[in-house]
């Protein structure tokens, strides 16, 4: 078995202890989506403000393990300010790193993973892949959520 140090990298524990972008956004105008990890009970809610196809703000609420929380925190930092196509490409690239089949096409835009590469070690712990991807799948759902109207 790979050592736990592959999983619990310092940067991961740092995001876990001091999560970025915690909180909620008012819906509307923001959109949101909820995700559940049936395996461990983790629950996450992603709030997203999209203006002119740019993610202008993102917030993360919910509870979870170190991997799901740190992944959500890093994700929130990485997507803020990106365009929606960039965000979709990032999701694809991240899931690819998690060895999840995302089809044959490469992401349309090459967005660097940056800090997120620290999560690479998760692949050696297959049951944790769902933890690492929970925030990302929920992000996709939030992107696809109907654009809220004020009425």
């Amino acid at each position, binding site marked *: *078995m790979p050592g736990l140090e592959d999983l619990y990298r310092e940067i991961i524990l740092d995001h876990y202890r001091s999560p970025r972008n915690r909180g909620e956004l008012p819906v509307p105008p923001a959109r949101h989506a909820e995700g*559940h990890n*049936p*395996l*461990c009970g983790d*629950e996450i809610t992603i709030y997203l403000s999209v203006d002119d196809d740019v993610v202008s703000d993102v917030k993360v609420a919910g509870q979870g393990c170190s991997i799901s929380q740190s992944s959500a925190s890093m994700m929130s930092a990485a997507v803020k300010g990106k365009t929606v196509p960039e965000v979709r490409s990032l999701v694809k690239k991240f899931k690819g790193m998690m060895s999840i089949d995302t089809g044959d096409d490469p992401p349309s835009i090459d967005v660097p993973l940056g800090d997120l590469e620290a999560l690479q070690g998760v692949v050696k712990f*297959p*049951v*944790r892949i769902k933890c690492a991807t929970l925030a990302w799948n929920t992000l996709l759902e939030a992107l696809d959520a109907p654009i809220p109207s004020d009425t």
Partner: protein
Amino acid sequence: MTIDWDTVRADFPILRREIDGAPIVYLDSGNTSQKPRQVIEAMDDFLRTSYAPINRSAYRLAGEATDRFESARASVARFVNAPSADEIVFTKNATEALNLVAASWGGANLGPGDAVVLTHLEHHANIVPWQMLAAKQGFELRWVPLTTDGQLDLTDLDRLLTGAKAFAFTAMSNVLGTIPPVTHLVSAAHDAGAVAIVDACQFTPHNVTDVQAWDADFVAFSSHKMCGPSGVGALWGRMELLDAMPPYIGGGNMIADVRLDGFTTAPVPAKFEAGTPPIVEVIGFGAAVEYLESIGMAAVRQHEIELTRYAIDTLGERYGDDITIQGPDNVEVRGGVLSFKFRDIHPHDISQVLDQHNVCVRAGHHCAKPLMRVLGVNATARASLYLYNDRSDIDALADALDGASDIFGF
């Protein structure tokens, strides 16, 4: 590649079981099939070294078991050429699979003024769930009748399908061996705007199954009839249909969230797999389809066509008019299920006399009472073949039938 069928036969330990000093002659595979050592060993080994919960716990042993479980799902999907493993729902048997379709899809889609078309060939598993639902939701059941040689009489099919919302039919009769033209029936159903539900319980064990070539909507089958363990069956369904259907059995694993005031469901297939699944049985089912694939279903079908021809010919030559084999004579449109009448001797008595010679056949209504009434009997004697049978089994059957004449003095 030519198959050594003796080696195949030797894979089945029970065929060496002796009663009264002689091995059994197993001709009841239409009822349930025997299991090769590869399947028995896969389960035994899993229980001794790898048994763990599925989809629930995060330690490696559980992860490993979950992977084996999901890879069995992938094997079963591949075996019937399902587009995606997620479209395979594991049930306890084919009966539950058909009930799931009736209660969930039918429950949401059928009401007064609607019709479901069935055939006179159906097994109770593809009749009673529809009758139960019809009694609740008030739709009509219509029946495709038979020709005299036990094939579907499709003369009025289009009329029967007019306004029908579902057409549910067997891909192979468990009484007469009849193999209806599935692709044709599916497209007739679709032309009429009906979903096509195939009871493939008797078909998948003996033929190359391709749910995409059929273009069907739902296909039900059972592990225990195809060299796999009891306690598990499968429903394949189109994702867009499964996705839209309400859940069937409620409990753990099928939920996304549960609150005091209600619940939300997990994605398919989990939505339809409430509770602890048949863990070991699914793994055995996977081993069974892999075993069958290692031989090749086209080869299995060919072997059974030859054996069926041999059986019809041997019994006919030996007993002439004293024996009638029911169902189509053309072995291209039938499987190795041989219901027969013998000298007016009651099927139950035939089976008794055959059993004296260790020949195991089923006598009864085969869970197809409406078909029995069409045939004008209340039971048939039925010898049903599988890949492990050979000509010696047919010869043993033919020899043993002699004993019946002695006793009943016909």
